[in-house]
């Protein structure tokens, strides 16, 4: 559980690094300005270095906790498949560390996208392990269980998959380092669908006063943000349908129905945060909150699927 919470915070801190354009503020890795990273003097944690160095330290904590978790499962738990999940988490955290390091060493912007994707996958994996280790998972009373209809489970699985795809789109947008490709909402450059002719794109760029020296925007980036918006609306409708379907099929008092409505609240908050990201001109704190709630939405869908699968299997 501690590992899962720390991972969630780490995603937030990673979000802050990108929001503050601080990913390359520490040019070396695994050292920090030539120091052993654990001995880097606190008085040098300034500007972008603060975010990047804190991110590295917290990542080390997550790596350490994941190693302990894998060892604990291997030694104390009898479930073979859970052993391998622990090993998978261990390997994934190593891969994630290397991806982060190579992003710095090879100075490759695009590596930030798989780094973000692996972060989300790792969060789901560690939370899934925490769920499997929980008392709820191990002490479910078979007699009281009601199976979850296959249609509902499939619906929620596909919406969760769509959220993951949405997070990949979002990571691609963020790692363009171009700031806001569309600076208004709910309209887009004053229209329902923005003009992306070369002359208009040139005009958008001429009118931007990007404080952080972001790259000029392109038609691709404008269209990508439009896709992000459309997928967001689709996900919201999908989650709303999931919540009402769950109430219809399982009843309002069922824990999974309540969890689905919690998911809907999360999605509503996420839509508001998406709008706030635009209205605040991508303020770092608002944008990072948007990243974290996105991760929480993915996690909620994934855990719902796991709990429903577990319940259905035991009830059968």
């Amino acid at each position, binding site marked *: 559980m501690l590992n899962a919470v720390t991972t969630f915070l780490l995603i937030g801190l990673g979000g802050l690094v990108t929001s503050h354009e*601080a990913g*390359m503020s520490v040019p*070396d890795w695994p050292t920090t300005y030539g120091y052993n990273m654990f001995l880097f003097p606190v008085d040098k944690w300034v*500007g*972008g*270095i603060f975010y990047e160095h804190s991110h590295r330290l917290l990542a080390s904590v997550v790596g350490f906790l994941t190693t302990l978790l894998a060892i604990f499962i291997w030694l104390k738990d009898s479930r073979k498949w859970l052993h391998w999940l622990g090993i998978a988490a261990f390997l994934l955290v190593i891969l994630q560390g290397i991806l982060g390091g190579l992003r710095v060493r090879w100075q490759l912007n695009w590596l930030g996208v798989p780094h973000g994707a692996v972060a989300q996958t790792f969060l789901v994996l560690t939370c899934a392990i925490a769920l499997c280790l929980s008392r709820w998972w191990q002490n479910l009373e078979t007699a009281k269980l009601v199976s979850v209809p296959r249609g509902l489970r499939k619906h929620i699985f596909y919406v969760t998959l769509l959220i993951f795809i949405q997070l990949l789109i979002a990571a691609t947008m963020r790692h363009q380092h171009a700031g806001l490709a569309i600076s208004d909402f709910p309209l887009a450059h004053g229209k329902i669908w923005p003009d992306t002719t070369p002359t208009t794109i040139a005009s958008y760029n001429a*009118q931007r006063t990007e*404080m952080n020296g972001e790259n000029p925007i392109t038609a691709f980036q404008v269209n990508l943000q439009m896709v992000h918006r459309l997928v967001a609306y689709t996900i919201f409708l999908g989650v709303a349908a999931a919540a009402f379907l769950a109430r219809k099929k399982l009843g309002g008092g069922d824990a999974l129905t309540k969890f689905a409505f919690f998911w809907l609240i999360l999605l509503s908050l996420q839509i508001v945060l998406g709008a706030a990201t635009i209205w605040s001109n991508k303020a770092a704190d608002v944008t990072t909150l948007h990243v974290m709630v996105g991760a929480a939405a993915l996690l909620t869908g994934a855990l719902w699927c796991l709990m429903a699968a577990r319940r259905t299997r035991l009830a059968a």
Partner: protein
Amino acid sequence: MKKFVLLLCLSAALSLQIAGAADITGTITLTGTPPAAKEITPIKDDPTCASLYPGDLPKTMFYVTGANGELADVVVTLKGISGQSTGASAPPAVLDQKGCLYVPQIIAVQTGQKIIVKNSDPCVHNVHATPTANPEANQVQMPGGADLTFAFDKPEPFLKFRCDVHPWMFAWVTVVDSPYFAVSGKDGKFTIKNVPPGKYTLEAAHRKLGAQTADIEVKADGAAQNFTFEVK
């Protein structure tokens, strides 16, 4: 004796060539209303940088204009000229980090010409060149640290230098493969010196407003060409 005569002939030929070369001059003007410059408020995030500005914070400098719309920071080059760089022997260009800003924000250099990056600030910066055609480089520069030297082998317009410790800091360097270029001043004027007579395409490029070209002929007394950019 033979060597002396040869040297004399070479010097004479060079003198004749320079005498035959002329300047391209012009003025860049901006029409339309550019977006207002904004205070760089993120400077407040770093106490050391903030302490350098006890009064007003500096503002963004995307459009540096004169009273009558004269436009600075436009890079004017001869298009299609390559392989004539004398960058290796040219004096180095200088970028300073002063007041937690890059000064100047726009420069142009030749391929192979050295760019000296200084740190006049009391805080650390990372000098991060993010080219598209040349290799990327990211180096730390401590306060009072030694100057850093960069050089780029391939021509590239508006190659960005940034500091990731202070993400509002950036400069753009246009790398040209010949000595024939200029950057317009605050009066909008530019001069490209010692251009051999002939027909050329002149390009004026502004980072925010794109590029314009004009066909010109450089005669013995030079050539003049003005450009007008419009903010839409």
